[in-house]
């Protein structure tokens, strides 16, 4: 095991004439959505190949197919000219593909050396693990990539940057021919990024084909030899980096024209400030974010993966602790990290993660809707059921929520109808500000426009709507003003009329 890379020159020479990996006509569909449609992707040994695209372009699906996490529905995969069938993570590893996911896949209680050899521990004659060899080989592997991590350190105690190095060493231990780095710099400091780039170049020098998944233009221009752009699950372009400029790359990533899918019903926004956020910072992500949202307006926040939208949403409703700064709702200061006063002052969050943070799936529709307002239905400390049911029924009628009855378990409703119930939960409470985080995630295209209409209506009724979204059409179709985030900072704030896709994406890339 690992002979090749520990002792260069002894292993089989890497043939640079044959593609390291060749994916042809890859297709993948999920219920209601085509994630990949006839995508070609070819990797050359010793080259760094960037894979770019907006959120939802299909980057993740493509690398998960390489990793054996998803099966493909169509197409062929060849490794060094030979067709392979990747059905499981094990198959993928066996074929020499190693994907370093953003969410690092190491056992945090294990030592570094144990993690490097997780896929298969070298054993001695007795069947016992050869710890000496593992430690020595680990050290040798780190030597090869030019970065030392103590093989005996507990993995969970290391910073993400070093855990990435452990993953890379792990790739070498298994003689990977293809190493995929998935958004590797999203939580690294600039120093760590340049170290990582040094290591990635060494991998390429070893003849490994590196896939660099990112949406950061400057990084791609610095490290990549070739760039492939995906958009809406389709292959758009593959070109040497030298043929690209910032503008051509952005053009490839956006491409489409946005039609006005969501006819606006509401009037102009008011001038009363409903929410005011000043110099908000959190320990992990947000840096000095300030903005105001007015009654009756939709303030859209755009950002790429990891920009900090969800963190901002959770901080301003009092769900997550904040390090410094203030949040004021309707003139009253919100105590940080306290959702109780948040709800009392009238700010609520429609979470991006309905399943784990929004719904109580086993409970009936009416209990899900009335959750935040039980006090309003109480008489002598008991919930007045008749009153509660009537209130919920009103919302079911108003929002045309499709459910057989109030007593249906909410998990049996469609995503769009679940979302409407959750919006009712907050309206029942009499909110002044509603923060909606990716309001149409996991909702069918048909139902999306209904949710948009609902958001439009909320603003029309005088609520301030703060909408976090990664979808450009949603943003341009709904928002009165557009805020753009990048790496925890607010990088742009403009009226809808002045916004263009290029301007927004430029601000999002930073």
């Amino acid at each position: 095991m690992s002979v090749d890379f520990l002792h260069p020159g002894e292993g089989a020479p890497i043939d640079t004439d044959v593609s390291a990996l060749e994916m042809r006509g890859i297709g993948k569909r999920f219920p209601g959505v085509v994630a990949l449609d006839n995508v070609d992707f070819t990797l050359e040994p010793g080259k760094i190949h960037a894979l770019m695209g907006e959120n939802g372009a299909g980057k993740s699906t493509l690398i998960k197919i390489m990793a054996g996490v998803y099966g493909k529905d169509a197409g062929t995969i060849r490794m060094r000219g030979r067709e392979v069938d990747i059905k499981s993570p094990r198959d993928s590893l066996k074929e020499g593909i190693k994907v370093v996911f953003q969410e690092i896949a190491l056992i945090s209680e294990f030592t570094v050396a144990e993690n490097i050899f997780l896929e298969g521990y070298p054993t001695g004659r007795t069947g016992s693990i050869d710890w000496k060899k593992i430690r020595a080989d680990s050290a040798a592997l780190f030597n090869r990539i030019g970065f030392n991590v103590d093989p005996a350190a507990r993995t969970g105690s290391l910073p993400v940057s070093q855990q990435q190095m452990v993953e890379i060493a792990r790739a070498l231990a298994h003689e990977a021919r293809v190493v995929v780095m998935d958004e590797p710099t999203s939580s690294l400091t600039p120093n760590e990024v340049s170290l990582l780039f040094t290591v990635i170049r060494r991998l390429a020098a070893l003849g490994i084909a590196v896939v660099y998944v990112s949406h950061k233009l400057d990084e791609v221009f610095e490290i990549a030899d070739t760039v492939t752009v995906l958009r809406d699950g389709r292959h758009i372009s593959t070109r040497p980096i030298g043929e690209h400029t910032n503008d051509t790359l952005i053009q490839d990533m956006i491409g489409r024209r946005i039609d006005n899918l969501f006819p606006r019903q509401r009037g102009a926004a008011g001038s009363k400030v409903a929410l005011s956020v000043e110099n908000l910072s959190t320990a992990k992500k947000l840096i000095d974010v300030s903005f105001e949202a007015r009654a009756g307006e939709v303030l859209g926040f755009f950002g790429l993966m990891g920009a900090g939208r969800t963190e901002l949403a959770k901080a301003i409703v009092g769900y997550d602790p904040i390090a410094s700064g203030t949040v004021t709702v309707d003139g009253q200061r919100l105590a940080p990290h306290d959702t109780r006063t948040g709800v009392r002052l009238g700010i609520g969050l429609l979470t991006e993660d309905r399943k784990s943070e929004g719904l109580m799936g086993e409970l009936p529709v009416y209990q899900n809707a009335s959750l935040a307002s039980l006090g309003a239905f109480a008489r002598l400390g008991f919930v007045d059921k008749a009153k509660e049911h009537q209130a919920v029924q009103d919302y079911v009628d108003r929002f045309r929520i499709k459910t057989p009855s109030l007593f249906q378990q909410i998990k049996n409703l469609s995503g769009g109808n679940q979302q409407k119930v959750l919006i009712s939960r907050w309206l029942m409470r009499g909110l002044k500000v509603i923060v909606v985080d990716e309001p149409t995630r996991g909702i069918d295209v048909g139902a999306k426009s209904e949710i948009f209409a609902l958001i439009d209506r909320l603003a029309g009724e005088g609520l301030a709507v703060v909408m976090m979204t990664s979808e450009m059409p949603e943003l341009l179709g709904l928002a009165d003003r557009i805020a753009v985030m990048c790496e925890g900072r607010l990088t742009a704030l403009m009226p809808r009329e002045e916004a263009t896709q290029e301007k927004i994406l430029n601000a999002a890339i930073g």
Partner: protein
Amino acid sequence: MSLASTASAKDQPSLLARLFARQELALLVCLVLVLAFFSATVENFFSVRNMTNVLGQASLALTAGIGCALVFISGEVDISIGSLLATIALPLIIIMNDTNSLALGVGGALLFGLIIGMVNGYLVAYAGINSLIVTLGTMFIMRGGVYLYTGQRAISDDASLDSFIALSDGRLFNIIPYSAVIAIVLLVAFGYMMQHWPFGRQIYAVGGNQEVARLAGYDVRRVKFICFIISALLATVAGIILAARVGSAQHTAGLNFEFQVVAATVLGGVSLAGGIGSLTGMALGVLILQFLSNGLRGLGLPTEWQLVITGMIIIAAVAFDEAKHRRANGG
């Protein structure tokens, strides 16, 4: 930071902090304190006779605790072991009474244990049912079955084989009870396996992060399945020793035994969440509770108080552990 920077060189915690970070060492200190306290307060506590007696008493929990710890580390629980103790005594005693053969009796008991382990393991690993529920179910089923079969009367060991009786009162070199020798041999063997065999590390990996283990190509279900089988087989060994000690198959044998074992395992720092803990820790947990119980009895404290104190110690130990982890993870 330079290219050749080393991860652990900076942020080294103090020596004391590192010692206490070693779970086993903290437990060892506790055990020594328990021993010192009762040696000073209870007459004849610190005698070879009493020490080896306690070791003999602890051997059941030590043996079954290995399996309990393995299942915990894999991220599951097994609370069916107490009932298993009573159940496997039936084939053991009945076969021995019929054949006068210890080997056949033990073979029958182990076969029975194997089947129970496979049932538990199948339902958890392959059918995907929560392990607490599965083993709670098999715990009731086995206990009920034993009550029904025996009509709540003990089935006595009529064969009275010397080799079987030696399991209860025999001592190696006339000092260490055979039951303790068996427990120690098993502890060493499984302890070695957990640290030095690929399968042992697989158990830690599966419990530590099931998704990572799956991505690394492990057969997560198989690992869990085997852990339940090992747990049942080791409980069977404990059940055989218990049957030898009481000289019969008793319908009440091993009542609440599973909770004593779980208590000791948790006290020993094995995490219910999986992936964390060691057999050494588990063994120290068993010994602390056993010596504590013995010492408190020596002080003349009634059993009821022992229960109360044991309960408080377990909660305190786990709370201490939680606090330590929270500090270590900086959150």
